[in-house]
Each structure stands twice: as structure tokens, then as C-alpha cells.
């Protein structure tokens, strides 16, 4: 016999229980939809992160500088990326279409002579960054507001709820457009805070602000529900302080919901960012986001549809992937959630 000697009369150690997080992760990994969505997202993120590598070392181009006089080599011939029409009356200038060659202008040029593929990658970085950071900020701030309002109730709840009502009272895009127009004209100058109009922090702040109620409201409801549960009452009975109860009992119970919100809010915020940038009131040129590139491509829709289609397709794939992942995370971590479908 090998192994430890079992002492007579000593009970065997209880098997280690598997925590809810590990259960959830296991379910996620067994869900093919979640895996595919995650792999797709990972691929997109990695490719977008490689934007400087493509632009600087492969295509040797500057994605942010107008390059109207640029040339490239197609079929062994050096050609201008913006080509003067020589037929008919000779009116108009057309950017070159996709070369399908990674050494430059893989997806063709835009109206400024810039490499569309390079801008697509840089644009992806921007869109993903704004979408993810604003989603996390929404969830953190929304969770904070929901916790405080739901747990303390009374005047605190009334004030916070009315503030949320105030934001919610505006159609979301109307509020976003209004804030964008004001802030993007002269930037944000508030005491020591001085943010230039072209700073990405501005769209992040705007999108975070308009979507906080979408996170805070359901979380407040969840906290109100938790507040009446026995384990909270037991904690109060044991003399635990409010903040300890919030941190140790309430927050832990709403955390799965908050995590479920992150991918869903990321998809929503990416779309909002793209919409604002498409309207020229989001990311400011020469910075690129998928929304600004679609806007750039609008004027080339008849002749060079790839300029608008490429970022549009990327946006759809990414948003669908985030939503599928979000649904899977919800199924894994919060199977009793009543809310189904996208936010």
C-alpha cells in the first residue's frame, strides 16, 4: 500500500468544491459559440494591434497623412494612387482600387491617397479601444451608482434615480450628438481639466455618460432585491458595516451581471462610436475609426465601395462576436437572468 496512512476514526477530507467562476468558465469553454466568438475577437484585436507593423514595415505608408501625390507599383508599373480620369471629358479623379497585395494599398486608396487597409487597422484599434474602455467605465460607474442607490435607498436613491432619469429622458443619440457638438468644437476645459477636441477621451466620456443608466438601472433593481435576502440581514445582525456588506456581500453577487454587461456594452458602444464618427462628431480626423472610414467612403460609394464596405463589415463581425460572447457569458455566469438578447 502506498500513500498516507489513514488514521482510524479520522474522517476523510471533503472534496474541494468547484467555485462558481470556475463552473462558469468551464461552461464557456464547452460552448462552441463562445469559443468561436472569442477566437474571432482575438484575431481582430491582434490584427488591429499590428497596424503599425503593417503601415511602417510592410506597406511603408502613413495612415494619417494626406498623400495625394503618392504612387504605388501595380503589375510592375508605378502608378499614382489618385488617378486623373482620361476618358470622355477627363473629369474626376479616382483612387486606385484594391491591389490585394500586402506590400501596399491592399484595399486600395481613399480620397486623400491613404492606404485604406492601414487605416482600417488603425481604425479598428480606435473603435475597439473606445468601445471597450467606455464599456468598462459604464459598468464600473453604473455598478457604483446602482449599488449606492439600491443599498442606501431613501434620499440618496431618489437623487441618483432622478439623475439617471434625466439622462434617460433624452433619446440616446440626440444626447450623444448634442454633447459631441459642444465638446468637439472647443474641447473640454473645466478647471485643471483641459482636453483637446481631437482627444479620444472625449468620445469615451460622452459614450460612457449616455449609457450609465443602462447599466445602473438593472443593477439597482438587483441590489434592492438582494437587500431583503437573509444573508444580508444576517450580516447586518452580526454588526457588519455598510461598506463591508456592500463590498463582501452585495458586490460579489452582482459581479456576474456586471461582467455579462461588459461584452454587450462594448458592442453597443462601438456602434455608437462609429455612428458618431460617421456623423463627423466622434473621432476627429486625421484619426481613424471604422465610423470615420465609412464616412470617408461615402463619397466613393459608386466608384470605390470597398472603402466604406470594409470597415462596415469589420464592424458587423466584431459587434456580432461581442454580442454572442456576451450572451454566452450570461448563460454561463448568470443563467437566471431575465434579460435576453442584446441590450
Amino acid at each position, binding site marked *: 500500500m502506498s500513500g498516507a496512512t489513514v488514521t482510524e476514526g479520522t474522517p476523510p477530507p471533503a472534496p474541494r468544491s468547484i467555485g462558481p467562476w470556475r463552473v462558469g468558465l468551464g461552461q464557456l469553454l464547452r460552448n462552441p459559440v463562445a469559443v468561436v466568438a472569442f477566437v474571432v475577437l482575438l484575431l481582430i484585436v491582434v490584427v488591429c494591434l499590428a497596424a503599425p507593423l503593417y503601415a511602417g514595415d510592410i506597406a511603408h505608408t502613413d495612415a*494619417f*497623412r*494626406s498623400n*495625394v*501625390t503618392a504612387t504605388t507599383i501595380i503589375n510592375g508599373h508605378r502608378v499614382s494612387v*489618385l488617378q*486623373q*480620369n482620361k*476618358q*470622355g*471629358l*477627363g*473629369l*474626376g*479623379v*479616382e483612387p486606385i482600387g484594391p491591389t490585394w497585395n500586402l506590400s501596399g494599398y491592399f484595399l486600395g486608396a481613399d*480620397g*486623400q491617397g491613404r492606404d485604406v487597409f492601414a487605416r482600417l487597422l488603425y481604425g479598428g484599434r480606435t473603435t475597439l479601444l473606445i468601445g471597450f474602455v467606455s464599456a468598462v467605465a459604464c459598468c464600473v460607474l453604473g455598478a457604483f451608482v446602482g449599488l449606492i442607490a439600491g443599498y442606501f435607498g431613501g434620499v440618496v436613491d431618489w437623487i441618483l434615480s432622478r439623475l439617471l432619469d434625466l439622462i434617460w429622458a433624452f433619446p440616446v443619440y440626440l444626447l450623444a450628438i448634442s454633447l459631441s457638438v459642444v465638446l468637439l*468644437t472647443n474641447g473640454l476645459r473645466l478647471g485643471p481639466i483641459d482636453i*483637446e*477636441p*481631437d482627444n479620444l477621451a472625449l468620445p469615451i466620456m460622452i459614450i460612457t455618460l449616455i449609457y450609465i443608466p443602462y447599466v445602473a438601472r438593472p443593477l439597482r433593481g438587483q441590489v434592492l432585491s438582494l437587500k431583503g435576502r437573509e444573508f444580508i440581514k444576517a450580516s447586518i445582525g452580526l454588526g457588519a458595516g455598510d461598506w463591508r456588506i456592500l463590498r463582501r456581500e452585495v458586490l460579489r453577487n452582482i459581479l456576474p451581471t456586471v461582467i455579462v454587461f461588459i461584452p454587450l456594452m462594448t458592442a453597443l458602444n462601438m456602434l455608437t462610436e462609429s455612428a458618431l464618427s460617421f456623423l*463627423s462628431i466622434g473621432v*476627429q*480626423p*486625421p484619426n481613424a475609426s471604422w465610423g470615420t472610414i465609412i464616412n470617408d467612403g*461615402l*463619397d*466613393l*460609394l*459608386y*466608384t*470605390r465601395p470597398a472603402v466604406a464596405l470594409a470597415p462596415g463589415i469589420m464592424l458587423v463581425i466584431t459587434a456580432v462576436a461581442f454580442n454572442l460572447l456576451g450572451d454566452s457569458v450570461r448563460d454561463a455566469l448568470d443563467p437566471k437572468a431575465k434579460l435576453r438578447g442584446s441590450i
Partner: protein
Amino acid sequence: MRNPKKFLLPIVAALSLVALAACTSSGTTGGAGAPSANPAAHEGGTLHLVAASAGGTLDPQVNYTLQYWQLYQGAYDGLITYARTGGAKSEVIVPDLATALPTVSADGKTYTFTLRKGIKFSTGKTVTTTDVVDSFRRLFKVSSPNAGSWYNVIVGADACLKKPASCTLDGGVVADAGSNTVTFNLTQPDPEFEAQLAMPFASVLPATTPAKDLGTTPIPTTGPYYFASYSPTKSLVMKRNTYFKPWSADASPVGYPDEIDETFGLTAEAEVTAVENGQADWMYDTPPSDRLVEISNKYSSQAHVNPLTAMWYLGLNTNIAPFNNEQARQAINWAVDRSSIVKLYGGTSLAQPACTILPPNFPGHVNTCAYTKGGGDTWKAPDLTKAKQLVAQSGTAGQSIGVVVQNDSVNQSIGLYMVSLLNQLGYKATLKPLSDNIQYNYIQNTNNHVQMSLTQWYQDYPAASDFLQVLLSCASFHPGSDSSINIAGYCNKDLDAQMTAADTQGLTDQKGADAAWGSIDKAYMAESPLVPLFTPKLVDFTSSRVKNYEFSAQYYMLVDQVWLK
């Protein structure tokens, strides 16, 4: 005048006709351009025009847009006008409601016209000398845009400008019903007075016309058409004036279509499609860049390209940093790649790089280029090295610059190029696109602290002063006002005095005056208050049924002279 599409431009293309003909790719007449033996056979049909938006008030003494100035040609008449024909003759002033060009006194301060008899308004009322006098009083009462800059030389105008409501122009415009004459007395000789009388602002209206901007209410006309209805959100309709009897084929020819309507609210893309499909006969707006190639290649017989006497330019605010520094301003002139901007506008068939403020083939224009690599009379290439040196010497590198442009695709595209260029030069530039409707007024107001703006200027009439004096004189700079056409805010009293002298010289020695204007142009370019970018051309896109296309250098396509049959 500014944007042909918005604030517009009357234009008298001061291009020589030779240049005009040479540069017009599809000719000044299209389709069945040859005169018909029986023009009446071509009368009839409804001409359908389309535009993105309406042109504002219909009042001819207030409206300052090409969009409606084009239509006024078939509706309103003044004492004199620019000949309503294509080609070189369109730059010639001819008598309209007057029987002949004015008799001018020896001192150049009195102009006497004899009014034609028997002409009627579209209401049936006969035009009298009283209508003429009251029309000029009304011009001041409604605060016509150029009342203070064009018609202020009329005796009594000062009082009218101070108190428009009680304007009488006593001693300034005198009618003699007996001899059927109208006499204008000026405070000083004005070599451009005739040209200004030929503008739509000087249209003769019924004396009973209310002295306020009538907006959407049509005012009776004297020409072949009258305005039957106008809804700025929907459409405008012109119908034949049954009281019209032709009196001058040069000034007020019979129109061919029975009716002309203009529908508003289409995008430029939709306008192109409508014309291609024959649902519309002409689009007012410039075809979008992504449709130009299609128009050029598939519909070349329906596209008419004509040179304009105009300038697209960057205004540099000389009163605030960084462009209160002359070297910084010169750096921009050196750095701008005009050929790139021409590409962004639509290519070499639609624009030519500009080096001077006065357009080519314009009175006073001199072939010279102060800011081109290697020197020479024409622009060849930018000199980025020199520009960077100047920026360094000016000590302005690193400063923030806002570039204010209109939010249409061409303007934004050029603005984006400028942002990129300014960043290359070491500045921190941002693009500030504004709606077409407000950008032009916004960039004029010094309270908005605009540092650099992209805008356009189209001639009102062929005179150097219409560019240099209007755009750069001290008198054109009004701090804090939305109407400060001197966008650069540049005021040089020496050059102002030279312009006044050139104006005066023009009364007796036009050639000498033109040389003086050329020197003044050079002097301004040395100071660089603005950056001329290119001289544009205009594309008129018409349906396949439109024939007899004629392009007037002054009023562009002669809308009512096209044949639909």
C-alpha cells in the same frame, strides 16, 4: 461674390472669350446648338430643375445667390443688363428697360437713361419712371446686401443708409415723366457704376412693392416669365408672363420652355441620377466627385464645362497667432501643394493652380508666381523646406490651428489635406467643418477667432476691385461683424490708397489702371493675408432632351434659353 452655389455669384467671367471657347470642353452651346430658322418651333415644354435646397428669399433686391440670379434673368429687368447670350457678348452691357446706354456727363457724375415705353409688369401695369425711382429707394429700404458698397455713390445714399425707412434719394435719382427719363446723380465718378446697375439688385419693380424683404412672396416681373409659386421646402414654379412683349433680343429674349420648375430637397447624388434618368433636366449643385467620372465618360454630351473667374483660397487671420506673423503666412503659401488640391477638387480638367488673387484673363491679372519652387510665372511645385524654415524663424511651431471649412465633401477633403500639411510643418492642426449655411458668416466674424478658413470668391462683375478691394481693403474689415468680407482682417493703408488711385485711373486710363492693379496684387501676395489655391471650372449636367445650351460668363447657363423640343 462668394460661393456660386450659395452666396453667389454673379459672375462676369472676365476670361477672354478666346480662353472661354478654348477651355470649354463641350462648348458653350450643346446639342442642337445652331440657331434655328424658326426659333418659335422650339417653344414649349416644362423645364425641370433640381437643387439640394432653396436659395432663400425670392426678393431680387435682397437675394445674393447664383441659384436665383440665374432665374431672375428670365424674370426681372433693370435699365441695363449684361447681354443674355453665350460667348463673349455675355460680358457686354446692353440697354434693357432703357432705350440706350446712359448718357454720361463729362465729369462722370451724371447718368441719364430714357425708359422704353409700353413695357408692362406681369400684373398688366405699365412700367413708369416712378417705378424706377421707387425701386432704387426700395433697394436702400430693404437693406440690399450691396446698397452700402455699390450704390452709396448716388446722391442721398448716405442718408438712406443711415435711415433706410425714410429713404428718398433726393437729388440722387430723378425722374422726368415728361421726357420719360431717369437721371442718376453721383457724389463722385464711379467707373463701375454701370456694371452695378446691370446687377439684379437694380431690377425695376412696381412702385407699390412693399419696402421689406418679401421672402417667399413673388414680386411682379417684367421679363418673359413670372414666379407663380415658391415654397422653399418644396419647389419654385415660373410661368410665362402673358404681358411680356419682346423689346430686345439681347437684353430680354423670349424664353423657350412654357414653364420652369425647380424642385428642392434632393441630394447631389440623387440629382445626378434624376438627370441621367431624364426625370430632371439640370442640376444646380456641383456633381459629387464619385459621379464625375461616370458623367465624364458615359454622359459627356450632356456635361458642359466652363471656366469661371473665381478663386478658392485660404483666409489667414492676420490679427491672431500664428498668422499675425508674416513669415508664418508666407510659409503656408510656400507649403501648399496646389496640384494636390486641384486633384482633390476633381482634377486638372476642373481647376488650375492659382498664384495670384486676380484670376487669369481678368483685368489686372499678371502672370507671376511668388511662391513656387524654382521661381517662374506659373505654379510648379511647393517648397516644403523653405516653408519649414520660415515656420522655424517665425517661432510659431507647435501652436494650435483650427481650419474651418464647409462640411461638404470637397471642402472637407481640402481641409483635411491642410490639417495634414500644417501638422507636417510643425503645427497642431484640427479640422472644424461647419454647415454650408453658417460657415461663411462664421469665418468673417472676428469674435469666432478663426485662424484659417477655406472659402471661395466669384466675381460680381469684371473689375479688379471686385477681388482686391472687396476682399482686402480696410473698409471691408468690420471686427465683430458677420459681414466682414475681409476674412484675413488685413488692413494696409498704403495699399488702400493705391487701390483708390487705380480706381480713379480707370476712369481715363484702363490699361494703366490694370497695370496698377497687377502691382497691388503682387504687393498683397508678398504680405500673404490669403493663399490662392486654384481657379475652378463649372460643370453643368443636363438631360439628354436639353438642347441649345448657352453659357453666359455673367449668369452661367441661360436657363430659359434651352430647348426642350
